[in-house]
């Protein structure tokens, strides 16, 4: 599904922050991406999400060489990827429900075909009472759950989550992890970038560890 070969990344003329990354993300797989702060976890997620292009090496995503993709093709590939970012990126003028329903709205689906699904998922992540609330009045944890719900609602082929349990208590953290596991069981490849050792200890999964720009894989 995803293949990196000798990938390097630098910002401008600065030092290379990711070096010689070679790995594969198989379909239906589950992995944690970890490493110290500044190791390049977010940059690697952005490479996987096509919002950054590598400075060298080959990135192949869903069978496409990303260096050859045009903007429309990138948009099409992104419809197959869900992403949860640390800063949530919710739209402040839209309710929680509308934010979560956005991926369906963008592809032009009839609201009646997904409304129940969105509401069920919002209940699941504990936002059943906050569906009509606007993001500015949500707590950090609520925003995070809304962002996760938006990323998983369309059941992407690949889910990228950057510190998805950083702002929630351990109980809710476990619940969210269960959501990711359920999603994975239904066929989504999941990559969770996290510092949280407890979270990683709760589920036996492949670990990708970034250290000084290089990737070490523990199966």
């Amino acid at each position: 599904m995803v293949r990196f070969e000798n990938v390097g990344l630098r910002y401008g003329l600065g030092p290379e922050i990711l070096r010689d990354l070679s790995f594969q993300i198989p379909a239906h797989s589950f992995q944690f991406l970890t490493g110290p702060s500044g190791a390049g976890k977010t940059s690697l997620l952005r490479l996987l999400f096509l919002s950054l292009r590598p400075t060298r090496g080959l990135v192949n995503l869903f069978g496409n060489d990303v260096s050859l993709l045009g903007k429309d093709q990138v948009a099409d590939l992104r419809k197959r990827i869900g992403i949860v970012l640390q800063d949530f990126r919710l739209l402040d003028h839209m309710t929680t429900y509308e934010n979560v329903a956005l991926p369906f709205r963008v592809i032009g689906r009839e609201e009646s075909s997904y409304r129940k699904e969105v509401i069920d998922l919002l209940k699941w992540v504990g936002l059943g009472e906050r569906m009509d609330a606007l993001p500015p009045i949500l707590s950090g944890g609520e925003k995070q759950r809304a962002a996760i719900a938006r990323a998983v609602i369309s059941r992407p082929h690949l889910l990228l989550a950057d510190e998805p349990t950083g702002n929630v208590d351990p109980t809710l953290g476990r619940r969210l992890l269960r959501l990711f596991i359920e999603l994975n069981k239904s066929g989504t490849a999941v990559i969770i970038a996290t510092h949280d050792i407890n979270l990683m200890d709760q589920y036996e999964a492949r670990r990708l560890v970034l250290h000084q720009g290089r990737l070490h894989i523990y199966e």
Partner: protein
Amino acid sequence: MSRADHEHGPLVDLGYERPHLPALARNLSPIVPRASISGRALVAVVAIMTYLASITTGTVLLVSASAAEWQSEVASEITIQVRPTAGRDLDRDAAAATEAIRGQPGIIEIKPFSKQESAKLLEPWLGSGLSFDELPIPRVIVARVQPGTPLDLAALRARVTQVAPTASVDDHRAWIERMRTMTGATVFAGIGILALVIIATIISVSFATRGAMAANRPIVEVLHFVGAGDRYIANRFLRHFLRLGLEGGVIGGGAAMLTFGFSESIAGWFSGTPVGDQFAALLGTFSLRPSGYLALAAQAVLIAAITALASRRTLFATLDDID
């Protein structure tokens, strides 16, 4: 392409917890909020530009229509002027000239001006208290020409000067040429002003679009995250700009139409004054024909379309920079 369409079963099963659907949970908000686009200033700019463009177009139409009328009137007559000179009888020369052109091919009516009538033509310049007997006033003969008949002016001139050597025959060609030049210059100036107005509109709209895109950059980024293509995003913005353009166009175009609609009464206030008379002479009744109003309406729609197109161009250029 998500898997939601062809996967079986719900992503989460709430079992007995399954909620009743709340009434409010619906997509009600626009993806790009209208309030995030500072539209009022843009509507004002487009309205002013449309008004200026419409006034220019309307004036050009009025001048062209009036000029065409003068030209057809003037082109359908010739004037013979018999000047007094020592040793010749002016009345006899005038009568001879009248007879010389009577019955010539293309001449349908001849109106010789008597001494009193000729003198009356000079009254606006010389006043009415003078005795015209002592003044050498030329005699004027106006002949109407059958429209569309080619007139052999040289032959006619030779015929007239044979019987009245001091007569001159004028078909107003030089005057018509000057008229044509003036009308052409007016139309040319009008097109120039229209071009400037359109360029200024495009620049204003481009600035407004860039401002709106900058203000809504977070929305654009999120739309990219959820897989929206540039065309989808641009269309969300474009509908706002098309509406703003139409609002501006309707206000500006409507105001211009009202201006022309009321211009007849405005012209009425000045009638009898030198300014009013000059305007009436130049622009006739100052009222547009129905086709003129149609042209103004089409122009307002055109400016709205230009607003949308300029916005679209800027949107795609700006979207290339945002990811």
